[in-house]
């Protein structure tokens, strides 16, 4: 009998967690509709859109989650399913489940590019509108692709480094998660560096766009290289990780870091003329909101109509943040 009590208690516990989770979730309560599938705009039918993003493993993705919640709330006429995933396998499972939930559109920020491409292609072929944000697929399977200009990210940031170093110096490169975003940034930056023979890349490794990972990678780089003049960190979380490593090693003099993303803490320090952060480059996580708004708009207008005038590829311009203009990019109330 005792074990029945235990089981009962635990079942109750699970139900409670599910209930609380439901409340804490982005959208209260479940709606059961029998075998609803993606269909053309029928009057009175509530559209359903799934948003699939990577888990908030660093500040930028936390910003993505914030803006995804925010933007979806501005469209209460649509039923939203917002899910994050730790790795591609998780994300594929979530996307398959969203399909059986009968979503009309999906807004996807891929955990990694190549592994998510086959499932995206399959969902696209099943007639679901696919809006892809930031990390792209390896095939053109998205109806709309929204991204920051990552080649400009790499080029502008590298040109700044070359200029500030006077064309001569030793630099370390921190790469991100393997995906189209990272490839575009790194290749564009390297193209600039290799055109300037005075710039020497002494260390290069992946910090996975993560603070802790970047810190440990940076520690190893510091041990192996007695002189590093500048660090191309390509992300503000990685910049903070690199800073911790520099401080712990007592090497935070005569070196500076260029991050990326426009995290408010970093922008503040650029504004305050911190020698460690002479500049930053924007990469707004709010672009997920643009993707969400686009998906909602296309469904409302009717997919076939809207696709006549909505561009397939939208590229967001990025800006170099310097002490002079930093106040234009400083949003103390933002999460990122």
């Amino acid at each position, binding site marked *: 009998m005792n074990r029945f009590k*235990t089981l009962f208690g635990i*079942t109750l516990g699970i139900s409670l967690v599910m209930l609380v*989770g439901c409340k804490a*979730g982005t959208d*209260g309560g479940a709606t*059961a509709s*029998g075998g609803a599938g993606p269909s053309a705009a029928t009057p009175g039918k509530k559209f359903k859109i799934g948003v699939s993003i990577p888990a908030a493993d660093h500040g930028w993705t936390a910003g993505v989650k914030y803006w995804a919640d925010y933007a979806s709330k501005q469209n209460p006429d649509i039923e939203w399913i917002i899910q994050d995933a730790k790795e591609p396998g998780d994300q594929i*499972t979530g996307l398959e489940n969203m399909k059986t939930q009968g979503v009309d559109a999906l807004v996807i920020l891929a955990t990694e590019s190549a*592994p998510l491409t086959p499932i995206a292609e399959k969902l696209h072929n099943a007639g679901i509108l696919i809006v892809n944000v930031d990390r792209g697929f390896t095939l053109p399977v998205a109806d709309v692709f929204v991204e920051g200009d990552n080649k400009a990210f790499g080029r502008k940031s590298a040109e700044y480094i070359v200029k500030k170093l006077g064309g001569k110096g030793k630099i370390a490169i921190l790469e991100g998660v393997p995906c189209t975003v990272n490839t575009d940034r790194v290749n564009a930056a390297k193209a600039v560096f290799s055109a300037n023979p005075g710039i020497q890349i002494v260390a290069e490794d*992946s910090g996975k766009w993560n603070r802790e990972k970047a810190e440990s990678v940076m520690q190893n780089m510091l041990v192996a290289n007695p002189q590093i003049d500048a660090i191309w960190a390509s992300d503000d979380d990685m910049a903070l990780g690199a800073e911790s490593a520099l401080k712990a090693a007592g090497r935070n003099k005569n070196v500076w870091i260029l991050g990326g993303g426009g995290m408010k803490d970093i922008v503040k320090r650029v504004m305050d003329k911190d020698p460690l952060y002479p500049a930053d480059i924007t990469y707004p996580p709010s672009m997920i909101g643009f993707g969400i708004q686009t998906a909602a708009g296309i469904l409302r207008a009717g997919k076939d109509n809207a696709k006549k005038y909505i561009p397939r590829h939208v590229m967001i311009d990025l800006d170099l943040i310097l002490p002079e203009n930093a106040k234009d990019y400083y949003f103390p109330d933002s999460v990122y």
Partner: protein
Amino acid sequence: MKKSNLLAEYGALVALILLFVINVATRGGNFLQIENLRNLVSQNAAVGVIAVGMTLVIIAGGIDLSVGSLTAMCGAVSILVINKFAASGMNPNLAIMLASLGAIAIGALAGLFNGIVVAYGRVAAFVVTLGGLAGFRSIALVLGNGGEIRSQSPALQDFGFGGMAIPFAKDAGGGPVLFYWSAIVFVAIALIGGFLLNRTRFGRYIIAVGANPRASEYSAINIQTVRLAVYTLLGALVGLASVLVAARMNSVGTGSVGLYYELDAIAAVVIGGTSLRGGKGRIWGTVVGVLLLTLISNMITAYHIDTNWQGLVRGIVILVAVLIQRGKKEDE
């Protein structure tokens, strides 16, 4: 049989049926779509294949923490082989077949290595395979240069999304619903594993070695050989699973593929009622465990629950399973 014993024996199955009924009651046709039910079997097929092998290892008194990393390593090898053969103009399906055999062979070798160190090196299985967890992942990362390895052969993806059409079933777009090859492999491996454990002499040896190694030795069972065999078998199954995963993604992200597979597989085994102390266990329980874990993530999406709660729900399910098992021991 006392009521509480029944519950201890079939607790996981009862839980699965309970959740199933709750889903049918609240989601109705949405839950019962053939496509959704198919997903429940196919989504964790790779973990399922590994969990079957893991059940045998755990019953024999061992454990293997290296399976997730080994999945990445074998998957990386399989894609490299496919790309090599595809470039040489070989029939793509033949290339996939050869790559699968290659991945299974590499997996079996790695499993054999684990087994040798455990059986003859007399190092605790936990420690040996912890080494594998770090080592195999590292080899995968080296092969993939830290990133993804993309397949150059579209046939691999066709295999990943191919399968047998389920009769009369149509998806929302009117197309056939395929029972994916990965799900078919999972079901087949589970049946073979169950047969091996319950109907063969080898199965009886596995149970004997796990229950009481010394007594097994006295009864002329070569316990080292049995241990080698279960680790090698698990390694081969990991190789097979790695191809299923690689096919679904048409690539292998060497840093992310197979992450936490060891925990998922062990969780499924434990939920299914196999004792971590060895000597006792069942394959069908493990299959129930895998399905239970898949059903939880299915519900997370359907009920719009924040994904961050998933771990807590899983944790509770695992704890319940272990608590009930502990009760079973006391009864004896």
